[in-house]
């Protein structure tokens, strides 16, 4: 193929600003934000009720705001693990096919910009919208915590909180890339939304069950397992399978970052526990090191999906 001239980034900023403004002003986004806000605040409120009794004992009080689950409500981060994909899909499912159905695509592509700029501008606009929403929510919760608990967060808690934000944005970016890939492949917005939501349900609800099922099929439970528990191979296989789902990666990352006492995300041998003081938190750096593979996998997933969307989009005929 002939070499192209001109910058790939030409027009990217313009697309970004337009899409960003569209997202922030759209009714769809407002509905999704209220959904997240209400469920989030509900979870945090019940956490606060619990925490008021233990204020003096817990060194990581602020992290508890995010992780404390009080029946029947799940913890705030569990709520987010479920809702971030929904918001991301809502932002991205009609990104490309919407331009076709509005018949604006050929007009836009007749301007001196590459298709790359259009796709990237849209992706980053969606990511920026997610970031704004998450940061707002995060600050809101810290504010609530300050008001009701009366204790400021420690420096380490703030850094872990920022880590939580970064992981959440990467997780949202992954679902945004899924939604945009669907919007490139399917010309009808409804089909694209349904497929994206289907993938989301598969990954968040069915996949944990499926990974168990597949493990059982490959390593059938023996009598020894009934007495001793599952074998090392069984655990490893099941964990590897479960980690295909971004939801597992996200949950594990947050487990490491937001629960400082987490020492490992897989099976632990007795020898490894020698000399360990159980229940003591890990240092900050070690916690981040623990979740490093999970976080990089999430980011790698974003890149792979984006490249897939890009490749399909480049090959598409402009003629609607």
């Amino acid at each position, binding site marked *: 193929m002939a070499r192209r001239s001109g910058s790939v980034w030409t027009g990217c900023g313009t697309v970004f600003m337009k899409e960003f403004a569209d997202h922030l002003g759209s009714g769809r986004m407002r509905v999704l934000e209220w959904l997240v806000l209400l469920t989030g605040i509900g979870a945090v409120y019940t956490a606060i009720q619990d925490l008021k009794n233990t204020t003096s004992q817990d060194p990581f009080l602020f992290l508890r705001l995010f992780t404390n689950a009080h029946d029947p409500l799940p913890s705030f981060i569990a709520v987010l693990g479920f809702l971030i994909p929904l918001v991301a899909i809502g932002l991205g499912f009609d990104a490309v096919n919407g331009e076709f159905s509005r018949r604006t695509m*050929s007009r836009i592509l007749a301007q001196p*910009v590459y298709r790359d700029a259009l796709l990237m501008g849209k992706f980053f606009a969606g990511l920026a919208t997610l970031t704004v929403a998450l940061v707002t929510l995060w600050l809101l919760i810290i504010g609530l915590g300050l008001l009701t608990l009366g204790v400021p967060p420690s420096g380490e808690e703030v850094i872990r909180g920022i880590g939580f934000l970064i992981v959440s944005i990467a997780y949202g970016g992954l679902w945004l890339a899924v939604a945009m890939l669907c919007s490139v492949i399917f010309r009808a917005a409804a089909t694209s939304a349904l497929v994206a939501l289907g993938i989301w349900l598969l990954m968040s609800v069915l996949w944990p069950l499926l990974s168990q099922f597949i493990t059982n099929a490959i390593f059938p439970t023996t009598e020894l397992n009934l007495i001793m528990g599952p074998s090392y191979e069984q655990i490893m296989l099941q964990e590897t399978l479960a980690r295909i789902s971004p939801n597992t990666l996200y949950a594990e990352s947050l487990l490491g970052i937001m629960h400082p006492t987490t020492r490992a995300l897989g099976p632990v041998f007795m020898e490894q526990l020698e000399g360990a003081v159980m229940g003591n938190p890990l240092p900050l750096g070690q916690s981040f090191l623990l979740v490093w593979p999970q976080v990089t996998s999430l980011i790698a997933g974003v890149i792979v999906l984006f490249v897939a969307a890009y490749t399909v989009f480049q090959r598409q005929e402009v003629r609607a």
Partner: protein
Amino acid sequence: MAEATGDTVIAATGLRKLYGRKAAVDGIDLAIKRGEIFGLLGPNGAGKTTTILMLLGLTEASGGSITVAGFNPMREPLEVKRHVGYLPDSVGFYDNLTARENLRYTGRLAGIDREELDERISDGLRHVRLLEVGEQKVGTFSHGMKRRLGLAEVIMKRAAVAILDEPTSGLDPQATFEFLDMIRGLKADRVAVLLSSHLLDQVQAVCDRVALFNHGKIAIEGTVEKLSQQVLGGGYGVEIEATGSDLTRILGGISGVQRVTEEGPGKYRLVAARDVRAELGAAIVASGGALMRLDHIEPSLDTVYRHYFEGQQSEGQHGAA
């Protein structure tokens, strides 16, 4: 900016586009100058839109060479798009934005300076008489207004080349008339206009030259008069409504008349080598007949088009038999 040879802004030679093994466009040559309105005609699926997309660099050509405003659309698509304004056949806008905001977005994408942009948007809107509704949401616009807004975008871009795909399809007669007038305005600004259409009378009204597409090839090309000569054999056509006995023979006897056909009761059509209207009138009256109407048939693109494709069809049938 590198100018192409002389005034030619679109030059294509041996342009081909294959979809699988089928050729949608099969070796066409085009040369269009500044200030010229060039029409692409032909039935649906003849390769008009594919040609347009290749000129814009939106579809990669399978063979041949193209130069648009001095650039190659395959190697320098951005430069080509900077100098070409494009109005697609199904033009759409963001309904939730105003007309101005829509133009501002494409203007920014086109790389027009911020300071200059508002001025140029107003300029474009004024040309298509949409200045008063510039602040209204495009969702409230009629089909014709959207098309005019599309033209405003082309004008705003101040492009050297304007490519209009079916610019008047779906417009009412009044809107069509106005729209064609705006296209003529582009010509006055020395813009090379390439338009595709199957509405022939409109093409005839506005185009300097036309190319008739058929199965991915340019069948015939030139001015409307040249085309009609080529296809119709270039006689002087006359239509007559008259009553009288044995008129066919009387009219056929006049010198210069080549052929007379009776098209209906009292309706005749004849082809002559020169303008024989005066002799015809005199002959009819002298024979005791009553002359109702005597009319010169303008060589219309419609006739050319129909004649050409009828000829094609009957040839095809002969070939099949």
